[in-house]
């Protein structure tokens, strides 16, 4: 994972000088700095504008909508030449109260947490295991690597459809195999428990390659003399793993686990396309539920915006707790 800390090592020639790059050209600092900043700003501006318009504005608007009772029925519209003004009202924290006091929310939250923890745990565990195997020197190494990365090359929605067919209770190959083995068939997507296992399995299949590639890169960056020194000292393989591999992987792990958690928490296509949230709404995670609120039936814009704000708040809390925990252990990013 390519996230560095933004720290820049200062070389002797630049020393502690603020203009880090071109230490020898510090004469006329103000004008140069302005010129340099002009370039920097010009280069980041397009991204900032896009983010500002397409994320900043909708975010503010979303927060505002979440404080109203806007639905499809009362937002302003233009039908032909008739302009219907918006008639929704400000209701303060009403939407949030409704959501937080509903058992539905807590059910969905519980399932989302289970979903996220088990998916990320399996992603990381399997990814690390496979990365360590692939890291060894052996025959067919690059063939294995390519085969194992393959699921990553399959677009998410295609993967979702493939698996939906594999899980199909009548024609799916998984049931065909069970039958061939003399076992009964299972209505995978019809029962809440098996449906949950199924979506987790699919997400693990989709997500492991990314972890594996990131961790493999991390493993390759560990200097081999550390292992040699440990071997000289008589460290067991477990000790080497525990005291060299894991600590040296920390920067990569920290980033991929956080990103993986965020991505899984917000994982839309797998659930939306495989079970459509069903049976009932048992496999619906917070994001798919909020999406459904917004775009099915009478579109409940305010309710879904409130769900969105709550999801975002949860993630921000999670990320900052995580960062604090890392920092306490001496990690700096």
């Amino acid at each position, binding site marked *: 994972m390519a996230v560095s800390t933004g720290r820049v090592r200062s070389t002797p020639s630049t020393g502690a000088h603020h203009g880090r790059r071109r230490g020898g050209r510090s004469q006329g600092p103000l004008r140069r700095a302005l010129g340099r900043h002009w370039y920097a700003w010009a280069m980041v501006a397009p991204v900032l504008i896009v983010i500002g318009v397409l994320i900043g504005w909708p975010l503010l608007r979303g927060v505002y909508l979440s404080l109203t009772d806007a639905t499809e029925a009362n937002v302003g519209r233009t039908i032909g030449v008739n302009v219907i003004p918006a008639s929704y009202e400000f209701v303060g924290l009403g939407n949030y109260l409704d959501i937080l006091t509903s058992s539905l929310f807590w059910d969905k939250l519980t399932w989302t947490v289970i979903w996220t923890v088990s998916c990320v745990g399996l992603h990381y565990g399997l990814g690390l295991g496979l990365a360590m195997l692939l890291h060894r020197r052996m025959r067919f190494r690059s063939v294995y690597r390519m085969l194992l990365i393959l699921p990553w090359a399959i*677009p998410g929605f295609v993967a979702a459809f493939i698996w939906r067919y594999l899980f199909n209770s009548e024609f799916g190959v998984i049931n065909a195999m069970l039958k061939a083995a003399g076992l009964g068939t299972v209505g995978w997507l019809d029962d809440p428990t098996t449906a949950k296992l199924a979506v987790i399995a699919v997400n693990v299949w989709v997500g492991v390659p990314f972890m594996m590639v990131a961790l493999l890169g991390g493993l390759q960056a560990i200097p081999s003399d550390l292992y040699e020194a440990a071997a000289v000292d008589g460290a067991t393989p477990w000790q080497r793993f525990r005291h060299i591999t894991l600590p040296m992987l920390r920067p990569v792990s920290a980033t991929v686990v956080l990103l993986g958690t965020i991505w899984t928490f917000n994982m839309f296509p797998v659930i939306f396309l495989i079970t459509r949230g069903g049976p009932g709404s048992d496999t619906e995670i917070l994001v798919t539920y909020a999406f459904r609120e917004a775009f099915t039936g009478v579109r409940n814009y305010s309710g879904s915006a409130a769900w969105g704000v709550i999801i975002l708040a949860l993630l921000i809390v999670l990320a900052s707790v995580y960062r604090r925990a890392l920092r306490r252990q001496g990690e700096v990013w």
Partner: protein
Amino acid sequence: MSTVNTRPVAGRGDRRGPLASVLLHATLIAASVVSLFPVVWLVLTSLKPRDGWLSAELELFNQPSLTNYSRVFSETEFPVWLLNSVVAAGLTTVLGVFLASTTGYALSRFSFPGRRGIMWLLLITQMFPVAILIVPLYNLMAALGLLNQIPGLIVAYMTIAVPFCAWMMKSYFDSIPREIDQAGLIDGLTPFGTFWRVILPLARPSLAVTAFYCFMTAWGEVAYATVFMSQEDKRTLGVGLQQFVGQHWSDWGLLTASAVLIAVPAAAVFLVVQRHLVAGLTSGATKS
């Protein structure tokens, strides 16, 4: 500064006994089978005749034919969706790579007021659930007349792909020695010229990964496309395919054939860049 050591570590694997070897390969083969099986099954199913998918039998081949493929092209809107997806993903890739690399370069090389803030912004952007943005974004797109317009969709994809890619590019640029920039500047290039002519060619592995990521983001996106592109002739593949397996009617023959057709370009792009994936994704992350 090159702390990334990509050669396989020797030593540990060298004194592996035959049993360990067998176990190692058995595990990797098993994992490869799991990773490959769904894709293989997809291809096999797509080659079965029209109603071949309706069989509950476990058979690999059953009068293989290309019926499903010809039906996809003649009986469905697939070609239109494909064109829409290609345009959307192609432009997202080009623009995304360009924006991510300029931003990444600025963040890597210049120190300017707001630099840290921007880096945080890029990271936090990752967290925004589609659910909170989608309604206001829908309204915004409607107000700008960008609903059912591919440019609107591309801009929306930018917000997903570029923040992560900019981080990735920044980390990669960090691993390119600054002396190279200085040499470019001394030779009379502008900072942008240095970036464009000197640094970008050096960053090819990372550009490949960024391109791959942007392409896959756009190629596989469903939520925005479902909402923004409701008009029949504007649908992308992710939206269109949902029709094949609806609530009341499903035709897995059509679905599997089109899924293969979709996965092929993705896999092709992937094969081109996969050599760079490991290096590109991790360089910089492991700097001490």
